[in-house]
């Protein structure tokens, strides 16, 4: 008698391609980037070429720091259906010379609660389950 196929275990999938979910369960998800070997420009995720110096040499894979600094923000009060408002939409600068768009949470969504340059740290959480039962993982930042 043929054995039935076991259903595949639900996977963890990143919400954006530059969030890497390691196979090692002892490790945490992290943002990765590519650093140009010719000019040092660093980008989120994978690249086929450098937009600054045009190099097409394969880039260095970089694990990006969990900690960054708040560059600027806006407080969004009106958004696409299903997005809870208000929330802090921020630009965070990472020490590797790359910036990331993100939500800042665990803070009052009010300009008085936010300081330019304040240290923030990244964490990840499941935000959605897709039709195949996979967990979609997103990253957010909170005051460090």
């Amino acid at each position, binding site marked *: 008698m043929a054995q039935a196929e076991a259903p595949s275990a639900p996977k963890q*999938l*990143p*919400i*954006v*391609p530059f969030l890497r979910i390691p196979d090692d369960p002892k490790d945490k998800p992290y943002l990765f980037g590519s650093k140009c070997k010719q000019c040092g*420009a660093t980008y*989120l*995720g994978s690249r086929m070429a450098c*937009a*600054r110096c045009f190099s097409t040499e394969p880039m260095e894979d970089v694990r990006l720091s969990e900690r960054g600094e708040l*560059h*600027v*923000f*806006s*407080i*969004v*009060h*009106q*958004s*696409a259906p*299903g*997005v*809870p*408002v*208000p*929330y802090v*939409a*921020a*630009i965070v*600068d990472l020490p590797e*010379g*790359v*910036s*990331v*768009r*993100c*939500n800042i949470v665990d803070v009052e969504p009010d*300009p008085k609660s936010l300081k*330019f340059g304040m240290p923030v740290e990244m964490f990840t959480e499941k*935000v*959605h389950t*897709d039709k195949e039962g*996979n967990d*979609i993982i*997103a*990253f*957010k930042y909170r005051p460090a």
Partner: protein
Amino acid sequence: MRDVAIVGASMIKFGRYPDKKVEELGAQACLLALQDAGMTMKDIQLMASGNLYQSNATVGQRILKEIGQTGIPVINVANACATGSTAFREAYMSVASGAYDVAIAVGSEQMGKMGLLGMGGGGSGRISPEGIVGSGLMPAVFGQAGVEHMRKYGTTFEQFAKVAVKNHKHSMHNPYSQYQVEMSLEDVMNARMVGWPNTLYMCCPTGDGAAAAILTSMDKAKQYTTKPIKVGASVLTSDPWNEREPAMFDVNTLTRNAAKEAYEKAGIGPEDLSLVELHDCFATAELLHYENLGLCGEGEAGRMIDEGETSIGGRIPVAASGGLLSKGHPLGATGVANIVEIVWHLRGQAGARQVEGAKAGLAHVIGLGSACTINIVQR
């Protein structure tokens, strides 16, 4: 490259036309421009049509089918918010190069109430990161751009709000404006917040509309008008590499690059401008562009708005038309409409909002992604 003149220019009132097809809006604007030039479609040798929402659906040709299927070349142009002005530049280049003698540029858009969803940023395809991983929509993008100016120079929410007060006031004299509602500083600051620090009245509306301009070589212009308006410069740039992109759009560098090139080509400086129609998609954007366009020194935009320098009657009127904030921003139409507004002032045809003795004007548009057009027109 030879000198090019605008001999016909017009637009339809921006607003909501849910029962019209977008080619009818564009056709109306073209007919008005043709009438203004004393021409018919027989005279037109090339059309550049700017339209964003239906950019893959030959809007230019559909306009021709409404008003004159002459078989001329039609270029359909899409370049985000710089769609109309890039179409204008295509028409300009076709005449400046000597390849054509008479060209028409038309910008049109029918947006409904949906609005532009903007660049949501790349995702793994299963769920949009918008609102979960920051925002790529216009209110947050232009909110952040304004906050950056606050960070650098201490500009305040109130100063940004003054831009909206000014532009809504200017539109009271513009019958082509979508909105004509004067509002106080309190009205603007207390309105519903959309993306801090921009409240509802500090955001441009969605809407429908069209505008058109007809260009000929300067020698030929005399056949059509006693008041040819010269295109001093028609410049287009995209955004150079920047460390914070693509997370944060830089709307400043590409504007500065375009401005420098435009002033050089036109042979004038910002002090020679009589009026400016810039890209005030959000009130925060306007102050940034005062500095980007060299209307004032670094960090002085707040002072400019505080001292009323950019109101009609001030040193350098900005958004005499009411700007995108009040006049409206049908995406494909804006880039041509800004130029039409300036042409009207240069010809002394701007009615109650006329900037006295207007001699030279600058039209500026930014499309996120990004594209910047600057057109300088002079008499």
